[in-house]
């Protein structure tokens, strides 16, 4: 039983929470660009957070559902239809076999996560089902979905769909919408930008001393735009050029998720999920862990400002973000009788 691709969309990749422990071999953790929405989408179908979902960007694919399936689309908001009727988002939806799910343009945010009860069962590679585009492995053939790609469901996905939906609807009235069934409650978005002009927090970069004062003031003062040539490896920022105080040569060293590096041209790049493990450009700042999922939801041309915080503030923000997500996931799984697999 599979999810078959009728139209591939812009960038649809199988993702989970990524690979661990291979950085010394040049393999980055990777995984979902917005792991928070990925986890919540999984919870909405009763899965554990590490089950593989389909990450869709900007313009989603059209899919044929191979068997009755419990799905949830969460994260970025999309113009999505099921057999021509609007698909309710951010809640569990029971779809009948042969339903056509069309995920159209994004209307808020950038990345959406389609979770299926039981997860997408592509073969794990190096301990993860996530697609690593630069390495050409993981997910569906190491690539973004193409027409006629078939993503296998877990064994027994159909029975699991009905069993879990029955548990969810034990306490809630079933809402029938065309050929699909759902419930009235939904998960709130927690990573979507509230308005244009998001503020993303960052701590000082290791090489910020190599930039002149004006460049640092510009980085934290200016309003930037996400450039159209941004991708899963990095978000390029459009704005003023950032100048180094003098010629600087950085020996290649490890980079992080959220490192803001500045190549000689002066246009900063924020390193995202599929970033290279090492780099030789100076880093002016590091986006804090709590805000990487929020940054991931800014689509090309969206505007963003960076606010400097201390390490202690970053740690407090991380705790607040983790608590928020854990509580939401726990609350959703409670609806499934806490029997997520």
């Amino acid at each position: 039983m599979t999810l078959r691709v009728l139209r591939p969309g812009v960038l649809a990749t199988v993702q989970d929470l990524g690979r661990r422990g291979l950085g010394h071999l040049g393999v980055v953790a990777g995984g979902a660009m917005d792991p928070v929405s990925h986890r919540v989408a999984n919870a909405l179908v009763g899965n554990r957070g590490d089950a593989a979902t389909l990450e869709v960007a900007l313009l989603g694919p059209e899919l044929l559902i191979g068997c009755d399936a419990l799905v949830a689309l969460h994260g970025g908001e999309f113009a999505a239809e099921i057999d021509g009727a609007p698909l309710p988002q951010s809640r569990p939806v029971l779809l009948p076999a042969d339903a056509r799910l069309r995920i159209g343009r994004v209307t808020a945010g950038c990345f959406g996560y389609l979770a299926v009860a039981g997860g997408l069962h592509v073969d794990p590679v190096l301990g993860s089902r996530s697609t690593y585009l630069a390495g050409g492995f993981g997910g569906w053939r190491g690539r973004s979905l193409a027409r006629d790609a078939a993503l296998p469901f877990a064994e027994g996905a159909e029975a699991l769909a009905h069993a879990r939906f029955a548990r969810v609807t034990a306490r809630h009235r079933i809402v029938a919408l065309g050929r699909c069934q759902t419930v009235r409650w939904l998960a709130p978005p927690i990573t979507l930008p509230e308005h244009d002009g998001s503020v993303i927090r960052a701590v000082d970069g290791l090489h910020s001393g190599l930039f002149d004062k004006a460049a640092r003031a510009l980085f934290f003062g200016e309003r930037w735009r996400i450039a159209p040539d941004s991708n899963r490896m990095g978000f390029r920022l459009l704005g003023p050029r950032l100048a180094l105080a003098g010629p600087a040569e950085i020996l290649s060293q490890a980079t992080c998720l959220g490192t803001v590096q500045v190549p000689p041209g002066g246009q900063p790049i924020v390193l995202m999920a599929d970033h290279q493990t090492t780099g030789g450009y100076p880093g002016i700042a590091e986006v804090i862990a709590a805000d990487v999922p929020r940054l991931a939801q800014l689509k090309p041309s969206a505007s963003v400002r960076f606010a400097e915080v201390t390490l202690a503030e970053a740690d407090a923000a991380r705790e607040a973000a983790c608590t928020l997500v854990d509580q939401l996931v726990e609350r959703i799984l409670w609806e499934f009788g806490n029997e997520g697999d």
Partner: protein
Amino acid sequence: MEPTSRGRNALPTVSPLGDSAVLLTLAECLDLDANALAGRVARDIRGRDLPWVSDIVPALVTVAVHFEARTARTAAERRAMLERLLVESLAREAGAGPAPAPRTVEIPVCYESPYAEDLLEVAAHTGLTPPEVVRMHSASPHRVLMIGFAPGQPYLGGLDARLAMPRRSSPRHRVEAGSVAIANAQTSIYPFATPGGWNVIGRTPLVLFDPVRKPASLLEPGDAVAFVPISTGDFGRIASGQHAR
């Protein structure tokens, strides 16, 4: 923060790298002893199997340790603990005498056309003949200084100083997988076909990174590498043997 107590710029240092990693910096410029020490410290930390450490990335003269944490307290504790572990490990490894001899990985390389696209340019730039370039390159005592940029892509030190070359003035749009290339007194091997600016002097039929092979990466940081010149005929035989597996 013992290592920084000697002053702001005294090395080695351990500093936070963002809010989810710490970085041990051993030297300001490329130094082979510092590089070897970085590799030993990274292996030592890896051997501790800390479940909350997600990645340990040694590079030319640094070691980054990426960690996971939920609460502010655990984040601060883990950062402090890693700083202490890195300092202790550094002291122990630096005083531990010579490292055990590395394993040597033999890598067959065909230094002939059509695989040696920039060999003539390297010869012209260095004032050597192409056979001399090949002889010096294959006789150099190469060591894997780091793996990065792409999965399994090694940066090798030990290149004969007479072969030092700048990068090509215009990068190629496509450098084939297996290409052996030199620049900045180093050698690299491209695991995948990618754009690249280094001077290609040969190609190996070996697959550097295969995610379903065990181990996936042909090389690891610290390995000694011996390049063995082969003919185009040998190249074809080895390449088809690899694909047959």
